[in-house]
């Protein structure tokens, strides 16, 4: 796109890019530098020695896995149904689902709270998994259905002619063929569940149930506002996310792009 044929031009573009990147680097430097201020590496040791730190990670993993499994399974089934099977009033159902696409989660707060209390789900993983999954499903279905609609009908008719029922078609055609789009669904569901703050804040009361997004708050209480340790805890909770991104860069970029484009 931009082109620099001369040595001068190329240097100018390089300098421009570097200057533009610096503000993005700055908060990360502040985070790392702040976490090493004062007692240096001892901050990290103090944070790591807090009992139950691992539990935050375990909880986040369990919730993310729960949301992903739930979203993936109902999405694949529904996308197949919407794209390739006969459903009376299909458009009506689809629109009912699409209407939930732009829904901010905060809208569900009061009724979910009252219902979770009544059903005894308050302070359980389900109180977070179910609403998070419910909010992710509409977009995942839209994406996967569009992908499946792009596959030729003849493929599915051939399977039917060969005697495969819809269940076998699902297992042997739909699941393997949707792998590229499933990767995208996987990534944006993972990020959505892992980074969510509001649902765990409201529905997970005890620290042994809470997720990593609540760690900074927990440490504000634990270290009575010792900034260096709070920043050290931020670094520790950020490391797995950055590592996962660095290992699976292309997946993350594609998945999140798919998650962004309607």
């Amino acid at each position, binding site marked *: 796109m931009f082109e620099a044929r001369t040595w001068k031009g190329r240097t100018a573009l390089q300098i421009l890019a570097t200057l533009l990147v610096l503000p993005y680097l700055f908060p990360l430097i502040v985070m790392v530098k702040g976490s090493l201020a004062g007692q240096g590496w001892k901050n990290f040791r103090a944070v790591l020695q807090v009992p139950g730190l691992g539990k935050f990670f375990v909880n986040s993993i369990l919730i993310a896995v729960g949301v992903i499994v739930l979203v993936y399974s109902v999405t694949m089934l529904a996308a197949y149904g919407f794209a390739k099977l006969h459903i009376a009033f299909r458009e009506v159902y689809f629109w009912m689902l699409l209407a939930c696409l732009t829904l901010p989660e905060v809208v569900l707060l009061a009724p979910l709270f009252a219902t979770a209390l009544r059903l005894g789900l308050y302070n359980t993983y389900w109180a977070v998994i179910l609403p998070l999954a419910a909010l992710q499903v509409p977009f995942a279905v839209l994406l996967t259905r569009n992908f499946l609609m792009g596959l030729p009908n003849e493929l599915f008719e051939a399977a039917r002619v060969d005697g495969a029922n819809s269940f076998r078609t699902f297992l042997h055609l739909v699941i393997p063929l949707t792998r590229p789009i499933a990767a995208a669904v996987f990534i944006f569901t993972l990020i959505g569940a892992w980074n969510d703050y509001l649902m765990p804040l409201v529905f997970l009361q005890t620290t042994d149930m809470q997720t990593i997004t609540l760690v900074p708050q927990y440490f504000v209480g634990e270290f009575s506002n010792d900034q260096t340790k709070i*920043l050290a805890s931020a670094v520790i909770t950020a490391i797995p996310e950055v590592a996962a991104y660095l290992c699976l860069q292309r997946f993350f970029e594609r998945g999140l792009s798919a998650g962004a484009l309607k």
Partner: protein
Amino acid sequence: MQQRQPAPPVAGSVEGADSDQKQGRRRHRKPPGLPWILPALVLSVGLIYYCIGYTGYISTLNWDGISSTQPSVGDKNYVRIFHDPVFWAAIRHTVEFFFVTFVIQTFLGLLFAVLLHARLKLAMVYKVIVFVPVVLAPAIMAPVFRHMFAPDGEFNSLLRDVGLGSLAQPWIGQTSTALGVIMAITIWQWTGLTFVLYYAAMTQIDQSVLEAARMDGAGNIRTLINVIWPGVRGTTVALAILSAIGALKTFDVPYLVTIGGPNYATEFLGTYIYRMTIPLDHVGYGGALSIILLVIALVMAIILQLVGRERKGGS
């Protein structure tokens, strides 16, 4: 469709119905799909519509969320909202937030995309630095930003170091700059995504058109304005929709960095609903606010569908 022939009298009624229409027959051969979509409908539509109905009911009550007495107040909560200056402030913040973050993000994302298409050195490093914020949870970064924008924080010391010490101020502690900080954090977080989307869109632009523009003597800026910008229009529209939805959903950053303050300067619909529903126990009022947010979100969803259709029709 109108040339339907009456079924011959000999043929049985079942067969007649079956061969009714070519289309009808093909549709009949497709296995039934309703059981396949049921789990998704129950989970998503069931849970969400149940909650919306419940919220609608709550919004007519004067309820603290716990007590068993739930006196109905009719539409009083809604009437109150329209006279609530904080509600209107939240709407204004959302609109301002959308325009500022969208324009700056688009500009920066586009710039990064064209720059990294120019085969710079260290392009990979630049990309990672700009994209990492997208992956990090706002909740984890919030303490970092509180620290950074504090009166004695790194941002003010940076200003002093570069000789702009007179600009140093309590960024998140005063009403005039707090919203700007929230916008800056959001831009920091989402530019990476804008950039990746534009970067991908630019690979779709016809190289021969670019070559032709260059042959005609167009420089970088002119190529950007006249060839690249129209070429990525679809992406820009999608990003505008995404930013608008994001503005409506805004919660984590203002709640964690400024708690909606100071003096409601960074209050958004999300933080206001939360404040009303959980810490203040005005669950009925929070419900009414939720319904209004819901209506706005629904209108957005419809616009999104219409724009999407137009885009499909155009290409």
